[in-house]
């Protein structure tokens, strides 16, 4: 919606002729995007979650580098080596007043695994792959869900019935069942796994988008666009979808968060990412039996999973509050 400049109203007064009121400032209305942005910025939980998420992503991608670009961390996640001190972590976060040693990072802050690989590098690599999987799944699911939901909601009738029955077919199959079956067919790489997973998790978004479309297609702007000669594709993607953007974005964020947890669950059952590719879920499932003797192998990837899922969930919740026009109460 374009910015509207409201003409300044004339002040009522019996003696003064109607004229423009002089102000030092201009009054303009906020666009919806600006409104949402401001509400989001004020949501403290979501903003702190966004900062933490950005730091985590930056750490994961800059520390060991990605796609050939080297990072600032020396150890590699593939190089096995000497296991020092049973592989225990060298990270010391207690300052010298408590500990005596002082804070230090050390050569292996997250420890080493059983063949001597640096666990920090391994965790960072796992985080990169998990983030990639989550993002790809979210993207694929959103694209498919929006297309199917919009077509079903816009055209209604037989197409709607057919598409919704198709959605129901996928919905009746328990998610873990179909993900596990699909995961088994996959060659083990992260990218193919995420594309396959994206093909099965789009159902709730499709239903939501269809619901929104069913109500929005009766609005006047659709009729106006039709009268001006727009074809259906244009109306769907240029006019109606931008109006559902709130629901879509919120749902996409929540899909990303649940995709991480889904991938973790699949890797635990053995149907997720396989060797040589890695991910946080695979790291945890590999080292779950080592928990009693070498707990760091289990704690660090788990903490990163929880961190990413938690921050993305908070961001999604903040977005939902920001997009919600009925949000009338604020903290006093």
């Amino acid at each position, binding site marked *: 919606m374009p910015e509207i400049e409201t003409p300044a109203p004339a002040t009522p007064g019996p003696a003064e002729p109607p004229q423009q009121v002089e102000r030092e400032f201009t009054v303009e209305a906020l666009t919806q995007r600006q409104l949402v942005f401001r509400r989001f910025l004020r949501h403290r939980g979501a903003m702190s979650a966004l900062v933490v998420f950005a730091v985590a992503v930056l750490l994961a991608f800059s520390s060991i580098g990605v796609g050939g670009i080297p990072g600032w961390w020396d150890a590699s996640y593939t190089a096995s080596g000497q296991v020092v001190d049973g592989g225990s972590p060298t990270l010391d976060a207690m300052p010298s007043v408590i500990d005596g040693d002082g804070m230090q990072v050390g050569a292996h802050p997250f420890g080493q695994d059983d063949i001597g690989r640096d666990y920090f590098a391994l965790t960072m690599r796992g985080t990169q792959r998990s983030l990639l999987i989550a993002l790809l799944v979210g993207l694929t699911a959103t694209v498919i869900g929006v297309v199917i939901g919009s077509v079903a909601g816009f055209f209604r009738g037989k197409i709607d019935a057919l598409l919704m029955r198709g959605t129901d077919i996928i919905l009746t199959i328990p998610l873990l069942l179909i993900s596990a079956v699909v995961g088994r067919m996959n060659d083990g790489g992260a990218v193919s796994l995420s594309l396959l997973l994206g093909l099965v998790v789009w159902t709730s978004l499709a239903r939501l988008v269809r619901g929104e479309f069913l109500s929005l297609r009766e609005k006047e702007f659709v009729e106006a666009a039709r009268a001006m000669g727009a074809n259906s594709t244009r109306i769907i993607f240029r006019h109606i979808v931008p109006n559902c953007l709130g629901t879509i974005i919120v749902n996409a964020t929540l899909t990303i968060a649940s995709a991480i947890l889904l991938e973790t669950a699949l890797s635990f059952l053995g149907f997720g990412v396989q060797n040589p590719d890695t991910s946080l879920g695979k790291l945890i499932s590999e080292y779950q039996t080592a928990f009693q003797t070498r707990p760091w192998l289990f704690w660090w990837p788990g903490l990163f999973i929880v961190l990413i*899922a938690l921050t993305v969930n908070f961001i999604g919740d903040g977005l939902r509050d920001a997009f919600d026009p009925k949000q009338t109460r604020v903290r006093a």
Partner: protein
Amino acid sequence: MPVFVIRRLVVSVFILLVSSFLIFILVAHSGDPLGDLRTDTSPNRDQKIEHRIEKLHLDQSDPQRYVTWLGGASKCLVPGLGCDLGQSVRDQDVTVLLSQALSATLQLVTAAILLSMVLGVSVGVVSALRQYSGFDYTITFSAFLFFSLPVFWVAVLLKQYLAIEANDWYSDPRIGITATALLSVVSGLFWGALLGGNRRRRWTVRVVAALATGGVLQYLSAVEWFRRPSLGPGLIALLSFGAAVGFAALLAGLHRRNILYACLTTAALGSVIQFPATSWIEDRTWASWLNIGLLALSAVAVAVAVGFAFGGLDRGPAIRACVLTALFSGLFMISDILLRTVPSYSKKVNGRVLATTGAETPDLHGTFWQNQVDQITHLILPTLAIMLISFATYSRYSRATMLDVMNQDYVRTARAKGLTERTVVVRHAFRNALIPLTTLAAVDLGVIVGGAVITETVFARRGMGSLFVTALNQVDPNPVMGFYIVTAVSIVLFNMLADIAYAYLDPRIRLT
């Protein structure tokens, strides 16, 4: 409505057919069914391969195999013919496997679902009533945290920190000063947030609760209650009266004396009946689920009679409150018996009271009550693991619906009429907030049968989850299809029930 049900069923059958075909094809192609046999070194390897090809019809095309399976499965619909869902690669009947797995899974998830529903909804409702308070923020953050936890990560952590540490503690069950202090503070904060009120009242409640908790914990520790736990007749009576007052206050308000007296009478009857009742139940010849069930029914009947007699004009709330009091009183009695069985059970399992794997201790040879304690201790950890996430979902959802309802006009009208806050909340707001929750609960019940896969794998319980994972690893379509059929039928049925329940509870909805 019959038209709705029939139309839904017909469409569901069609959907189930298509999706079962899809799953069959996916499973059949997800790997090599002869994989383990190809690397087999035994002399009759070729015969084994032939036998498996014949059994799984691997020489036929996929649609043919599917039709064979479908023919067997459709015999289930006719009550007379036996159900033939095929056999697994280990030559076991899938129907037998399924029924065993199903009962094991249901035993696991029932307690988790009920507890998480009750706790989640109550916490969510209180959180909504105290929006933007410290309690609300804590609960919201906890809910988000629990959403973001991977189930098996939590399960492994629980196994280590709860089970092993708790079992170590149980060998010398004393509560230290730091633990007492921490628990007292938490308890004080919790009760203060729960009971609410103005600043002064909250602080009084906090201090009193903290002191009470601290005192009780220190007393229990000093008396070594944990070695020989029991509730005792006095405490049972006290708790029954407490429950009576609580339910009367919640459902009717303490000023309605007739309902209060009805509940107190029920509690008094319970406190008296507990002596013969507990000795009957504990008696070896009596102990069985049938007898406990009979006692429960008679307790409810007595409660209904008391409520009816005292009710006067408010028979409905009176009967409800009395029945709840009677059930809780019975619950306290049963807990007492279970607690008193713990020492003898602990001796049988060498002090490792909280079990980490399996559904029961093998070769326990215990009495009826020891078996019950055994099953319960095996259920505690998996139930906790399932409850965490379920609780978060219910509390978020009930908070959202309750907030929605509290902002409606009719709540404002009710307040303007001069009704007490308790009546407005319990009678008007809560009932309307429950309607969308029914949908959520029904759908949740539908998916729960197939949804505990991870928990069952981590805690090594043989249920639907392990059936599915094993079959999938062996590329064995028949058990997977059996698993799918049970879960899909459950989902479809409960979705339909959810729609019907919604239409029944909300008169604005018409079933189409």
